[in-house]
């Protein structure tokens, strides 16, 4: 009994600690609940799907998929294509959503193939694969577009005539989903957008993840996550399923990035995707999820907690030390430290068990 209570407390310790940090920060920076709610309404919708894209690989025992950066790139490629063709609004968003499918599945299959060649070090492979893919992405969009790949859109190209501009205005896509059912509420005297449709999509992803665990594939992935050797002897196609899990995760990340971009409205061509992996993973982990176990609820709670801290810490840093920079370094430190601690605990327990 006491052991069970202790394990429950141990699971809740991490999210409790972060809640306390958020409350403390909000208190010293004199932030009102309305302000936080306003920030959360947009931040939650744009980040939740990205965080949820991490769940399936964890179920399959692949660990934290640092390769979702590659999925984010796939989403951006789709967003760039519809912007080039000037298709905006919900139709443009739907087209981007569809275009992202083949691109992300292709990238995801490639990543899964790499993971199969690097069993036991999938996480570091995913991290480096993300860096590598970033190089290829730069090669294509900074040098090939406009020179090798014909593109007649002077507003999108750099002055030299080739290479995409550093920021691409996604005017057509902005709020394509958030405003599909427009609803605004008044908070502290200003109108605040409530992205109902985006929340609906997040809900669908939650439902899918819950449903997925009950499907045949979901059960197979769970068996693989618990013991790949037993799963293989039971006739589960482990290597194929690992690729499937990675491809699905990559696809969800691509869709998640599209939701993110339609809320932000501008694409930082060469940097929007870079931090996706780190922030999504840190968000998942602050909820108390681990490298080998994470639930849909944890993904949602983690998104809210981490992004609250994200909003609060620069302001708290400014209030406490008179310097917002400290808070900015602090939140990056928290993200890295949370990931480090999760990795250490995971490896430590694994060593003890094996």
């Amino acid at each position, binding site marked *: 009994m006491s052991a069970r209570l202790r394990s429950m407390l141990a699971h809740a310790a991490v999210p409790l600690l972060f809640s306390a940090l958020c409350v403390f920060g909000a208190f010293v920076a004199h932030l009102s609940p309305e302000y936080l709610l306003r920030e959360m309404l947009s931040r939650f919708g744009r980040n939740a799907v990205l965080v949820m894209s991490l769940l399936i690989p964890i179920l399959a025992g692949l660990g934290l998929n640092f390769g979702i950066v590659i999925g984010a790139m796939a989403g951006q490629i789709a967003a760039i294509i519809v912007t080039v063709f000037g298709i905006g609004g919900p139709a443009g968003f739907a087209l981007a959503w569809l275009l992202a499918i083949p691109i992300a599945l292709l990238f995801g299959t490639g990543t899964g193939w*790499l993971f199969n*060649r*690097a069993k*036991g*070090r999938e*996480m*570091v*492979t995913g*991290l*480096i*694969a993300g*860096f*590598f893919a*970033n*190089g*290829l992405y*730069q*090669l294509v969009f*900074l*040098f090939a577009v406009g020179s090798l790949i014909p593109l007649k859109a002077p507003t999108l190209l*750099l002055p*030299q005539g080739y*290479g995409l501009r550093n920021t691409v205005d996604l005017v057509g896509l902005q709020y394509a989903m958030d405003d599909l059912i427009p609803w605004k509420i008044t908070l502290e005297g200003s109108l605040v957008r409530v992205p109902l449709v985006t929340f609906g999509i997040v809900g669908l992803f939650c439902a899918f993840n819950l449903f997925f665990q009950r499907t045949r594939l979901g059960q197979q992935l769970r068996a693989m996550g618990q013991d790949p050797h037993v799963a293989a002897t039971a006739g589960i196609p482990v290597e194929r399923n690992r690729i499937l899990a990675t491809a699905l995760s990559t696809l969800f990340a691509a869709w998640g990035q599209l939701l993110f971009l339609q809320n932000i409205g501008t694409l930082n061509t060469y940097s929007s995707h870079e931090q996706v992996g780190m922030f999504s993973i840190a968000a998942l982990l602050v909820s108390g999820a681990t490298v080998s176990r994470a639930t849909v609820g944890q993904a949602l709670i983690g998104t809210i907690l981490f992004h609250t801290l994200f909003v609060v810490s620069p302001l708290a840093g400014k209030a406490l*030390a008179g*310097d917002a*920079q*400290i808070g900015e*370094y*602090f939140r*990056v*430190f928290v993200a*890295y*430290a949370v*990931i*480090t601690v999760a*990795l*250490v605990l*995971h*490896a*430590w327990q*694994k*060593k003890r068990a094996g």
Partner: protein
Amino acid sequence: MSVTAPEPAAAPRGGIATAIREGVKEMGFPRLAIAAFVVILFGIAFATKMNVSSLVSDSLLRVGRNGLLVLALLPAIQGGVGLNFGLPLGILCGLVGCVVSLNFGVPGWGGLGLACGIGALIAWPVGVGYGWLLNRTRGQEMMVGTYLGFAAVSGMSIFWLLAPLRNPALVWAIGGRGLRTTLTLTGSFDHVLDGLGAFTIAGVKVPTGTLVLFIAACALVGLFFRTRAGITISAARSNPRFAKAAGISDEHTRTQATVFSTVLAAIGIVIFAQSYGFVQLYTAPLLMAFPAVACLLIGGGTLSRATLAHVLIGTFLFQTILTVALPVTSQVIQGDFSETARLIIQNGMILYALTRKVDR
């Protein structure tokens, strides 16, 4: 005790085609591609009548500058810890050494020695702690090292902001607190090693001191792994059970290897700063481990095996590419192609090493 070495490749049979295939296999395709890339870059440089001797001078400068950071990876691999992506831990210790030395305003050689000494002194206990952690997280050393390094760099960023230093040369002019992003070494130990015995031959400037130090450090590390302590470390790596039977704990030797690596990284960054002329704080050390790792892998190292030759060849090849790519490619295409090339080559090489089925 004898450690069985892998059999040397059998003499090629059946004509030149097989010989070439064997040769490619022995060298590894990526290595050949990279060597070919270097040759092509120099070819373009000659064809477009660029100042090749200045390109060579810059390459030599960068080899010396980065050499020790690459060498710092060697003990970790010898000790069985794998690629030490936690290099920033050692680098941060070296940076603290630099800041302290600058704060006291010790000029020239004394400043350099003080920075190295303090860096190494702090790196020692840091390496012990890091090694202890790596022993408890076996199998995930690379990931733990990477993120521990990231966390340490961002944690130290807060420290640089809050550091209780008031030296006007180091802190921001406005506000009077918080260390600057880059500290200049002019008047301190700027280029003291680079300039030592430097000479110019055929238009090529040779930073003798730094290069000699790099090669001497390589020789010392090589010698160390021939001493009793060094052989113990390698033996525990190649056969932990056998070592245990001989009374060697591989936990102990792994920690020693990690300490060695961390201390070398601390000294490495001081030498880097000396040659660069600036000390870079805050996020600058964040990604420093990756190019160093790429150097070692390009030279022929793997996750579990590396030699001094790999360190030397890899540093020369990769640093030459990094130096030459920007000026040469800018003759042909606009925009900074070298950064993209660096990303692809560096991470492609690490990815190749991580996904090799046969880890020699």
